[in-house]
């Protein structure tokens, strides 16, 4: 029978179908970070259980780490959490890329970089943006702490098979429009719950044309559309990610040849059927900017802030609340919105290509008077690569701050936070109330749009910013 990519991966990983109708699914790779794991390790200890497959489990620290002075963590509670991860990993034999490691980074940047993420795998992490790894043709999704404990103890999860949805991106992107705009547009179309219960497969010529890093940007925000996993079938671009450069945990030589032959068998069969299909014409996409407090509250940079009357898919009170929180009035052109802060970073847009494109655009320009710009690489390897290319110098010359790797102002758990009322153009993935600091106002955009806003002090259509 013809199968989709998801069905192939699912079938290959079912250990057993259980009497209650759920399946025990084998997990090939378990990624761990400091915030959602301590209670799981503690649970294991209390039940006198151990980590079944420490060799398939890899940890890093990202959410709670400082991005400036890494040697002195001022907050004792943060420090205790970081120390707990060090101890838990050393007790259980799990490899950890901690603050002293040159591989440390945001868990979803670190995994692919080190070759821990390979096509055909099942990958989980106690983090909803685990969907990022689906860019490689993996089944990857976020889990809660109880499930982290379950995977540590059993290397499996009990799962109910999701429905499948194909999202076909047709056509060609305009210049200045990016993978970030593609995914924001999709979320605007289906809403933040539109994908609930589905695994999305992104397909079509516009997806094929994307680099691996751009594909990660698309898959990253799958969860913002309500779907736990999004995936893209492996192709030549995927294979090249592993042949162009050696990656520590990826197969090499003959083993890589064998792996590639397997990866080529993974794409959905031509006659496979999906439970639902969505088409997005990318030619028509223009740069996107969120105006509200959920990623589905998004519009074109050429548009105005909408009011509740124009939005039948939202509850009126929710739109009114969002506008009030954001300090915006319906009818204001998006390009009239002034910003105080620019955050270039997060697991959505902090990889080397993001930094290169942003640096190319900001080179020879200055961050506008009164605007603060923070550039936070996704991982230490990304930081070193960027520095070897002189990108840090370009950012600093334009007036931006250059930091060590971490989640930083994406969730503002460390000291990188917005003040109440501050307005930020952010390349991250969530614009929830208070996400970047209590009272802070977040507008999600692409790195290019963020740079243009940094230079002008307000949003501009990056297509006209040359």
């Amino acid at each position: 029978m013809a199968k989709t990519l998801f069905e192939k991966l699912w079938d290959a990983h079912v250990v057993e179908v259980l009497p209650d109708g759920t399946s025990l699914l084998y997990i090939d790779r378990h990624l761990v970070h400091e915030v959602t794991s301590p209670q799981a390790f503690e649970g294991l200890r209390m039940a006198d259980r151990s980590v079944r497959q420490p060799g398939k489990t890899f940890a890093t620290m990202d959410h709670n780490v400082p991005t400036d002075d890494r040697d002195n963590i001022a907050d004792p509670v943060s420090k205790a959490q970081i120390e707990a991860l060090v101890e838990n990993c050393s007790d259980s034999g799990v490899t950890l890329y901690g603050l002293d490691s040159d591989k440390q980074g945001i868990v979803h940047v670190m995994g692919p970089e080190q070759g821990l993420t390979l096509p055909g795998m099942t990958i989980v992490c106690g983090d909803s943006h685990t969907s990022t790894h689906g860019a490689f043709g993996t089944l990857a999704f976020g889990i809660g702490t109880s499930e982290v404990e379950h995977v540590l103890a059993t290397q499996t999860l009990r799962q109910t098979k999701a429905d499948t949805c194909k999202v076909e991106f047709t056509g060609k992107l305009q210049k200045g429009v990016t993978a970030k705009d593609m995914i924001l547009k999709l979320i605007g179309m289906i809403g933040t719950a539109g994908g609930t219960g589905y695994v999305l497969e992104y397909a079509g010529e516009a997806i094929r044309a994307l680099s691996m890093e751009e594909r990660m940007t698309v898959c990253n925000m799958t969860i913002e559309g309500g779907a736990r996993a999004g995936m893209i079938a492996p192709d030549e671009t995927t294979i090249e990610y592993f042949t162009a450069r050696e990656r520590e945990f990826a197969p090499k030589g003959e083993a890589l040849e064998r792996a590639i032959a397997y990866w080529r068998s993974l794409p959905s069969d031509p006659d496979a059927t999906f439970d639902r299909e969505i088409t997005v014409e990318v030619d028509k996409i223009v740069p996107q900017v969120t105006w509200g407090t959920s990623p589905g509250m998004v519009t074109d940079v050429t548009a105005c802030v909408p009011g509740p009357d124009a939005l039948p898919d939202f509850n009126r009170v929710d739109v009114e609340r969002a506008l009030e929180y954001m300090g915006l009035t319906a009818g204001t052109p998006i390009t009239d919105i002034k910003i105080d802060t620019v955050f270039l970073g997060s697991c959505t847009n902090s990889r080397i290509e993001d930094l290169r494109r942003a640096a190319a655009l900001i080179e020879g320009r200055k961050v506008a008077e009164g605007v603060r710009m923070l550039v936070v690489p996704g991982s230490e390897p990304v930081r070193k690569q960027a520095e070897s290319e002189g990108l840090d110098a370009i950012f600093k010359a334009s007036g931006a701050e250059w930091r060590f790797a971490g989640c930083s102002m994406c969730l503002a758990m460390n000291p990188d936070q917005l003040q109440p009322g501050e307005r930020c153009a952010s390349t991250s993935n969530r614009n929830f109330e208070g996400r970047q600091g209590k009272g802070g106002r977040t507008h999600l955009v692409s790195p290019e749009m963020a740079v243009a806003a940094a230079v002008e002090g307000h949003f501009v259509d990056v297509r006209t910013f040359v």
Partner: protein
Amino acid sequence: MEGVETHRGIVATLDRANVDTDQIIPKQYLKSIKRTGFETGLFSDWRYLPDGTLSPEFELNQERFRRATVLVTRNNFGCGSSREHAVWAIVQYGFKAVIAPRVDRAAGRVPAFADIFAGNAVKNGLLTIQLSEDEVQAIFGMVERFPGLEMTIDLPEQRVILHMDEEESFRFDIAPAVKEHLIRGLDDIAITLEHSAAIDAYEAKTAASG
């Protein structure tokens, strides 16, 4: 975890859709490595004024909702981050159940609860009950009319009963596996470990072929 069959308690309403887990428990509370003490963080950005006192504006601070154990809210509750701390905070604050509507829109169906949140809830014995939009709307109305309104949730019968002069009740659907899990208060890991032989066999097979 203890099993639950029925629960009776006061109903509180929170009239907001897409309540995300960043709202349910903001990040500053996620630094803790313990499993307890999260109730102070529940909805903290809404619940407290800058000086740390309770905000009179926020629904759950109203006297009539102080001892509520059932939270009725709007669609797509618990979206966003996978943080299980959100469920811990709700449970530790004293809620036994959250009720929300699925909503049918032109663009498709919007579920009551986000996936990861609903999964985390089951693991902690928190009932997440999905009703229709009309039914939830009706409950919002009843809570306004009858201060201190109580509800019984009958899990085996899959019913919620609203205790007014004239009782009203609504039926809800729940996956059989989830229902059994909640009623029996099962330890997932212990059950999975009973399948260790199958996991061993799977690992042996994939190691040989891989």
